[in-house]
């Protein structure tokens, strides 16, 4: 027994601990995929279709093949013939039994369905050589009519896939009580009907996607380094798609430079790199260029929404009815059709709505496929209900704060485990005080007074004030619930916690960070649970050889699922350690207390053992209870029984220059509630980044297509990712309403900012223009669009 020491009191949870990830990244030592090179590697270059819809009539590879340094040039049909894959790229979310799902192979075979679809690949000795050779491949096409918008898809005079009769992919209804819904809309005192456009967005993580597949010729194994959020899912899907046994595939996500959903997919390049490396016995690499990324990586949003509200004379909601048409793009990728469904449950927002109905039609177009982008379906839902609430407030003649207060679930009071009409059970909420705090921080009354002053003075710079109370559904998720939605996988997360012989801990997590600071957060949880210093905790992740079980990072799930798994595994370690301590101290386990890393016998505090000593004892196994296995290592696979539902209120002010149409975001206040927080500094960073991504949708970003399906702004010169000069500093605060879905009481914070800010900003823009009778405006609110709207409203001289 070791001498008794003062127990270390760690209270890592809840502190804004600096990130352990940072020193390496700040020194330029972060190793992203494109930083990793191996001897003998081949560079892959993609030959991409310049047309949105066409039949391939011939491909001439001779010039490219003859070029210096070119190893081979392979066309779609040749690759198909090589038998590199058994099945098309997977769609894991067939939302209905009759969903149309055209085969999506890594390369086109005879018909291309969007600009940028791969028609051939080049393998060469150098980056530049691969790019040059790809340009020398001559492809002849017979153009076909392209479907370049949802409207064109609905119209159906052309079909995105020649073999289809219509462009419709599926119809998905969620109408729990059709009679109640009809009754609500029979004769409401107020009826709001609004149409909103969720423009297509390019996710634009700063690190482009890239792959490096390295074969090991002796064992037939292949290691894929990929800029992915989902190494575990990718491994399973590579096996299912190519027939390479799962045990022969290792996937590593090295440092990953942001994801936002764009790295949550199974991409043609990943399958091509793995299979070609495997077949050729040489490493194969590829990194998308930024302009290529607009075609080689999926896009987000792309919906036309119609939302209707029925309310009584006081503005109390009686029903919400929604229909959306969703743009799938050319193919169903991993969760393409599921994205609108993720939002479906949130169209009643934070409100008490007796009757609800939602329908969604998915359509194919000849555009880059859509899939998850930060928030995935939920920003769209939040936008629709929160914009519509402002329209209702104006109709009823009350303020946007008042319309919200009148309709909050539980009257704005605290609630837990409350069933809402979309059939979900919200874990916990307390909306009233959250709104109060946001209004106070924003100086809402002061802003309204300033607005009135400017209006009265007829100033050319008008003020608009916007607010949103959002709720999101995240922490994906209970496996059963996902199964009920026809999702092809579960939603659990795995953790292993080991206390090593030296008393240091090692945590293996199945969630996969790409900027969220998991290593820091996980070390805080483990430090508190085991009573050891955070620096004694090593976190392992993102490599399927080290962390074989996991379901990765998306849907704000890491903490609420993965973090909870870690905490539970720590509890099991402590429990086993306690048995050993009791045995070695000859006490009853029931009489032992554990605090600050020290087991002590209640009532006789000098009889104590630190957990590190137990770890060594578990390793030597000289003196363990009969039948106990040596070592201190426990694992937990946590599958929650419910989602988590973070919420918050955001209030912002914009200034609109009526002469130029320029919109300036003057101030932004966010009061979020993500339950208990492990590291408030990291939470705040997530909130900031999320807000600016939503602001970007509201004011700057749109993937613009012409009627032939050409993207007119693929580069960062034309696609306006906001810079520091475009946004203000933000004010953030929190209320804390612990979740009832998990023992840590945590919710999620990764997507919240984006789920609220687009609506908050557009509510402010429309508020500024409301004196002209403007009730709505499409995103992005660019100067041209704002100026035109003002002038049309003033009398049509636009």
């Amino acid at each position: 027994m070791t001498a008794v020491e003062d127990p270390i009191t760690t209270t890592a949870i809840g502190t804004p601990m600096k990130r352990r990830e940072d020193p390496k990244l700040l020194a330029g030592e972060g190793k992203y995929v494109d930083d990793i090179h191996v001897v003998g590697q081949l560079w892959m270059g993609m030959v991409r279709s310049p047309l949105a819809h066409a039949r391939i009539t011939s491909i001439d590879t001779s010039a490219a093949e003859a070029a210096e340094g070119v190893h081979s040039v392979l066309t779609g049909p040749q690759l198909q013939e090589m038998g590199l894959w058994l099945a098309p790229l997977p769609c894991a979310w067939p939302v209905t039994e009759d969903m149309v799902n055209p085969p999506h192979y890594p390369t086109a075979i005879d018909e291309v369905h969007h600009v940028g679809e791969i028609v051939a690949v080049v393998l060469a000795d150098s980056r530049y050589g691969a790019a040059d050779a790809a340009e020398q491949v001559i492809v002849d096409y017979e153009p076909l009519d392209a479907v370049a918008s949802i409207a064109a898809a609905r119209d159906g005079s052309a079909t995105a896939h020649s073999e289809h009769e219509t462009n419709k992919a599926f119809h998905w209804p969620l109408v729990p009580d059709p009679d109640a819904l009809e009754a609500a809309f029979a004769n409401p005192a107020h009826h709001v009907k609004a149409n909103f456009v969720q423009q297509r967005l390019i996710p634009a993580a700063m690190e482009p996607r890239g792959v490096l597949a390295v074969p090991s010729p002796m064992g037939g194994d292949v290691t894929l380094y990929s800029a992915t959020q989902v190494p575990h899912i990718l491994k399973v899907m590579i096996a299912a798609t190519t027939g390479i046994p799962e045990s022969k595939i290792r996937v590593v996500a090295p440092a990953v430079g942001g994801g936002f959903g764009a790295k949550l997919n199974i991409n043609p390049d990943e399958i091509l790199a793995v299979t070609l490396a495997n077949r050729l016995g040489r490493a194969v690499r590829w990194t998308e260029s930024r302009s290529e990324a607009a075609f080689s990586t999926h896009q987000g949003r792309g919906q036309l929404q119609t939302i209707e509200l029925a309310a009584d004379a006081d503005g109390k909601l009686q029903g919400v009815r929604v229909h959306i048409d969703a743009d799938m793009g050319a193919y169903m990728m991993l969760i393409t059709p599921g994205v609108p469904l993720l939002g479906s449950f949130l169209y009643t927002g934070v409100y008490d709505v007796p009757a609800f109905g939602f329908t969604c039609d998915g359509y194919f177009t000849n555009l880059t496929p859509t899939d998850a982008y930060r928030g995935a379906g939920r920003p769209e839902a939040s936008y629709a209900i929160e914009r519509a609430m402002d329209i209702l407030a104006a109709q009823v003649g009350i303020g946007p704060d008042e319309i919200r207060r009148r309709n909050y679930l539980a009257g704005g009071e605290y609630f837990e485990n409350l069933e809402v009409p979309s059939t979900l059970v919200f874990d916990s909420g307390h909306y009233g005080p959250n709104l109060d705090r946001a209004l106070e921080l924003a100086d809402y009354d002061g802003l309204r007074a300033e607005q009135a002053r400017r209006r009265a003075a007829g100033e050319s710079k008008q003020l608009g004030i916007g607010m949103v109370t959002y709720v999101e559904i995240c922490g994906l998720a209970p496996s059963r619930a996902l199964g009920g939605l026809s999702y092809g996988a579960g939603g659990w997360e795995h953790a292993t916690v080991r206390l090593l012989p030296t008393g240091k801990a090692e945590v293996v997590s199945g969630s996969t960070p790409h900027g969220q600071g998991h290593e820091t957060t996980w070390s805080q949880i483990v430090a508190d649970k085991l009573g050891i210093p955070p620096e004694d905790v090593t976190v392992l992740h993102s490599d399927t050889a080290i962390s074989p079980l996991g379901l990765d990072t998306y849907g704000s799930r890491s903490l609420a699922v993965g973090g909870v798994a870690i905490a539970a595994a720590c509890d099991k370690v402590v429990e086993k350690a306690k048995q050993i301590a009791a045995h070695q101290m000859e006490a009853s386990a029931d009489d032992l207390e554990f605090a600050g890393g020290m087991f002590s016998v209640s009532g006789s505090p000098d009889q104590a053992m630190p957990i590190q000593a137990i770890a060594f004892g578990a390793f030597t196994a000289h003196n363990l209870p009969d039948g106990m296995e040596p070592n201190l290592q426990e694992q937990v696979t946590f599958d929650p029984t419910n989602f988590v539902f973070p919420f918050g209120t955001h209030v912002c002010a914009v200034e609109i220059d009526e002469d130029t149409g320029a919109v300036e975001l003057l101030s932004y206040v966010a009061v979020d509630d993500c339950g208990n927080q492990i590291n408030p500094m990291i939470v705040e960073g997530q909130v900031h980044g999320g807000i600016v991504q939503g602001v970007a949708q509201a004011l700057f970003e749109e993937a613009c297509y012409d009627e032939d399906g050409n993207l007119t702004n693929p580069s960062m010169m034309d696609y306006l990712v906001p810079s520091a000069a475009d946004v203000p500093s933000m004010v953030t605060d929190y209320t804390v309403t612990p979740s009832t879905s998990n023992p840590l009481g945590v919710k999620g914070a990764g997507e919240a900012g984006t789920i609220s800010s687009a609506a908050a900003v557009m509510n402010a823009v429309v508020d500024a223009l409301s004196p002209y009778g403007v009730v709505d405006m499409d995103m992005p609110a660019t100067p041209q669009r704002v100026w035109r709207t003002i002038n049309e409203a003033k009398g049509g001289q636009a």
Partner: protein
Amino acid sequence: MEVSVTVNGERRSADVEPRTLLVHFLRETLGLTGTNVGCDTSSCGACTIHVNGESAKSCTMFAVQADGAEITTIEGLASEDGELHPMQQAFMDCHGLQCGYCTPGMVMAATSLVAENPGGLDEAGVREGLEGNLCRCTGYHNIVKAVLSVGGAA
């Protein structure tokens, strides 16, 4: 063509194709992968380095144009004993990075912005000064805070 540069105080030479971009020369020929590439239109600033003491986007230059130049990359910013440069430290203290991909370029741009403004910067000055460096993660709030903590007006 032969290119000789002094990178982070060390003389390095190599034979490269004339069309080799400086960023590829640094990353792939010299193995200094701290400098990142985020775009192909000189828009993002991920590749920002110092050339002869001034910040430059290394994707906009050919390696041959840098022949004879003094170059500092992110790898050369910390002191020899590994102590972070005050700007790197400020980014860490203010949580000015998440995925870290924009960070090397952002830090290099920020150090020269501060050097060019010895009188100190205000928030608008920092925001405008970093306009050429995009970050998708942080919303810029904490980056601005970090830069002001080093180079803000007193």
